[in-house]
């Protein structure tokens, strides 16, 4: 065992058999209190800084404090790292690190046969085995013989490593065993622990004994692997080829929040968020509330309706106004969204989708709010709907949602989902200078002939006159507006005209959004169609099909849902078959049928609260191609 001396760490031990891999999937599982999220994040960040492409997915228990050792209290963190492009957190895992029996039991299904399980043998006590509903100890009963199991008495080794460190109670000693596991994994994958040690230095600046303790345990794990003959070899994953630039690993919800920050700066409007906490959208609120230094205003409202209503008020008064929610909250916001649409004010509503209907599956992912976003309001009430498709591009689409709202004077619904919102991936940082300009429709000077519902002839967007502007006092409201005075009007023909204008205004947004660009093939036998958060899975599966020699398959993935890109029909019709893959029962497929007569897309749907798996997608593609 090395002494606590960072310099002693050798990141490339000579006497080791290094096998190089393209990509690897690691899953850390344990009790909620075992620090699996931190362990996973550290491994991810270290790998990203090393130059790997990464994609992660955390899996928290839905209970806040589930009983220790219970099956439903298992917390997990999966990370996929690669020297090649990595678009999903991966389906099956190459290495499972199980800190307790419950973690092993609930995650064993995902381990590839023949691959490795590291288990903390100290935690496989009679009590914990019972809690995990094991009749016999899986480490002893031969049930794991298809895997390479590395048993490590992590709890005792951690205690051993910490002998002599002052100021630690028993609890904090056992709680640092996750760092022992991390140290082992660092050695296995040929990673330097330096980044994590740096992290301790920052995090525990005021508690030097914790820096020492965590570093000791991390090093102990690292050297334990090195000297352990149970680990016959280690693996290296070379850096991935990615466009050059400055990167950081970012979580989808953070990227969404940052996209709004950037849009506020770029548009010169102050950012206002009115929001009510809801899983899995709350992190956007948590993130934005930190940024008061940019003048961000947040109101944690009394309910979902007040969240959007306050945002509408802020939009009326000139802020870049946002409200964030998930499916049940979007349902509550429906009436107010109709008001925003009638007032023709800029507003962005984020729907981080989760399993529905009703309370549904709050912590699981799904894409079943699409038709709600499209149509979930009274009256003919079209608005812009766009969807982000990766954790990193949540930034881009949050920015884009603001641009469209401000330039077109309309509410925009931005859809993400629990999967990309909680997942993280490398983001090539976009500096303000590299972002496009955002226009607005603000009118500052009184004009003789001005009317509230006068429109830009091209976009049909009305002007935005902010209270405080002398001479342009006017009243807006949810009652039908006279065109163009904005006065209340019950005239039959006017209502029909205004209804048509509102719909035409959204249709014309098509001129301001990019075409959909099919990947892998632009014509052929099968076009795989997706939208939103399934991009990683679909892209990976179609790419693998190509690698297996199926050159006749393409992928068209949609971020702009309403309106659809102008070339959509053309792209779809260039293929013999179309397969729309969605995590719902076929909502986007319905939209395509409505929009393109004669188009008869096939569907592949999954509603299990889970993302698509690679195998199930490829099986389906092959079936349609045979």
């Amino acid at each position, binding site marked *: 065992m090395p002494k606590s001396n960072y310099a002693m760490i050798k990141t490339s031990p000579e006497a080791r058999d290094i096998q190089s891999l393209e990509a690897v999937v690691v899953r850390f599982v344990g009790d909620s209190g075992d620090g699996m999220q931190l362990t996973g994040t550290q491994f991810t960040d270290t790998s990203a800084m090393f130059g790997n492409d990464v994609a992660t997915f955390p899996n928290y228990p839905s209970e806040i404090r589930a009983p220790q050792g219970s099956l439903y209290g298992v917390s997990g963190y999966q990370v996929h790292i690669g020297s090649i492009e990595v678009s999903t957190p991966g389906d099956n895992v190459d290495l499972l690190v199980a800190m307790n029996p419950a973690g092993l039991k609930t995650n064993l299904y995902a381990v590839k046969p023949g691959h490795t399980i590291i288990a903390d043998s100290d935690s496989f006590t009679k009590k914990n085995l019972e809690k995990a509903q094991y009749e016999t100890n899986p480490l002893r009963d031969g049930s794991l013989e298809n895997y390479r199991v590395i048993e490590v008495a992590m709890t005792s080794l951690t205690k051993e490593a910490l002998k002599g460190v002052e100021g630690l109670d028993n609890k904090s000693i056992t709680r640092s065993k996750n760092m022992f596991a991390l140290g082992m994994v660092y050695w296995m994958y040929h990673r330097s622990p330096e980044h994590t040690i740096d992290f301790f230095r920052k995090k525990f600046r005021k508690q030097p004994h914790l820096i020492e303790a965590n570093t000791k345990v991390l090093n102990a794990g690292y050297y334990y692997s090195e000297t352990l003959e149970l680990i016959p070899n280690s693996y290296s994953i070379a850096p991935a080829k990615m466009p050059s630039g400055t990167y950081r690993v970012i979580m989808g919800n953070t990227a969404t929040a940052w996209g709004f920050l950037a849009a506020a700066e770029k548009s010169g409007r102050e950012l206002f968020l009115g929001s009510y906490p809801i899983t899995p959208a709350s992190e956007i609120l948590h993130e934005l509330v930190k940024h008061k230094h940019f003048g961000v205003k947040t109101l944690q409202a009394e309910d979902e309706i007040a969240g959007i209503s*306050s945002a509408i008020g802020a939009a009326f008064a*000139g802020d870049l106004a946002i409200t964030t929610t998930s499916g049940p909250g979007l349902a509550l916001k429906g009436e107010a969204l109709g008001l925003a649409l009638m007032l023709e004010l800029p507003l962005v509503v984020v729907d981080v989708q989760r399993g529905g209907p009703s309370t549904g599956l709050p912590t699981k992912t799904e894409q079943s709010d699409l038709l709600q976003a499209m149509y979930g309001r009274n009256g003919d009430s079209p608005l812009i709907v766009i969807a982000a498709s990766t954790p990193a591009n949540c930034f881009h689409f949050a920015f884009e949602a603001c641009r469209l709202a401000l330039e077109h004077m309309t509410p925009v619904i931005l859809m993400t989902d629990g999967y990309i919102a909680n997942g993280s991936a490398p983001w090539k940082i976009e500096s303000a200078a590299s972002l496009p300009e955002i226009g607005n429709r603000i009118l500052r000077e009184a004009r003789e002939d001005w009317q509230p519902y006068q429109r830009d002839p091209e976009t049909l967007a009305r002007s935005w006159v902010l209270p405080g502007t002398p001479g342009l006092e006017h009243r807006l409201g949810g009652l039908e507006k006279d065109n163009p005075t904005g006065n209340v009007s019950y005239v039959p023909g006017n209502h029909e005209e205004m209804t048509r204008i509102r719909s035409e205004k959204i249709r014309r947004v098509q001129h301001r959004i990019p075409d959909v660009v099919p990947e892998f093939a632009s014509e052929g036998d099968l076009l795989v169609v997706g939208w939103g958060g399934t991009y990683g899975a679909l892209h990976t599966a179609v790419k693998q099909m190509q690698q297996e020699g199926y050159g006749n398959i393409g992928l068209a993935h949609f971020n702009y849902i309403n309106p659809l890109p102008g070339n959509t029909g053309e792209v779809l019709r260039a293929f013999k078959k179309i397969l729309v893959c969605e995590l719902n029962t076929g909502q986007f497929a319905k939209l395509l049928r409505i929009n393109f007569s004669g188009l008869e897309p096939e569907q592949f749907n999954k509603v299990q609260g889970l993302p698509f798996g690679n195998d199930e997608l490829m099986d389906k593609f092959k079936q349609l191609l045979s």
Partner: protein
Amino acid sequence: METKTKKYTYKDFASDQEIRWCPGCDDYVILRSVQKALADLEIPKEDVVFISGIGCSSRFPYYMDTYGMHGIHGRAPAIASGVKLANPDLSVWVITGDGDSLAIGGNHFIHVLRRNIDLNMILFNNRIYGLTKGQFSPTSFVGQKTKSSPYGNTQPPFHAGELAIGAQARFFARVAGNMPAEMAEIFTAAGRFEGTSLIEVLQNCVIFNDGCYAEYTDKSVRADKQLYVEHGKPMIFGKDRDKGLVLEGLRLRVVKLGENGVTPEDILVHDACEQDPTLHQMLIRLEDPLVTGIIRSYGDVTFEQREDALTRQVKSNSDFRKTDDLFFSGETYEVH
């Protein structure tokens, strides 16, 4: 707070829209009183915003030549909060009714009061749903016969004021809808008050609930049935100004000056600014006489002031000025 001022008459605040309330409705009187108060407040009219919900009263913004929004049912306090937080320089007014703010919008009503955002909220309480043609409201009395309670209402009412005090209201006034001078005076005071001010107007609906407050507001009885309180003044009322309130144990009692040796010095002096709302609550509950005027006006830190102080503090402790500072901070790495 506003530094800009401008001279107006009430007429300057009238919009060109034809007013659609029923002839004889108190809403006309309230409208005129608000216009009068705004002229007195001398706030440039481009800085004035009226936000309403749904109901007869909520047509109000259309009749004001200021900025305005006719919102959705019950949500005006939330919309107005957004307006004020986006631009604290605006003078923001909420127009609401008993159905709008005490039924469908109850949640926003209590929370806006709790936060104490600088808004002025006028609650037109006619104890009935007018716009939907005559159903009972949360302030209708038990037994009241309405379209939706033909055999008599079975739901006991709220006192708007009690609810407001429970929600931490710092400013609460009550005024009869047929007393324009008092209304204008109260609206002016509300406009000057920093924090959420709530004014309950006892509003007669000539169509669906005519005379609902007549026992208090009719000119022939009001001097004896209403006690119009003023801060710092003894709570004396009556046609002959010979009645007053005294505190007896945990009850307010009406006494007659000169009787049983009662002198003006014995009468309670109204303290609207007292932080403890106990007495204000008792005044609100009193039914004979009905207490009107500014019952509570306790100055407190507003939500905006708290937020503003916090923002300044965070700004001064932070190195982040532009988003680039944030995006490129911390754990970044280069790919070549």
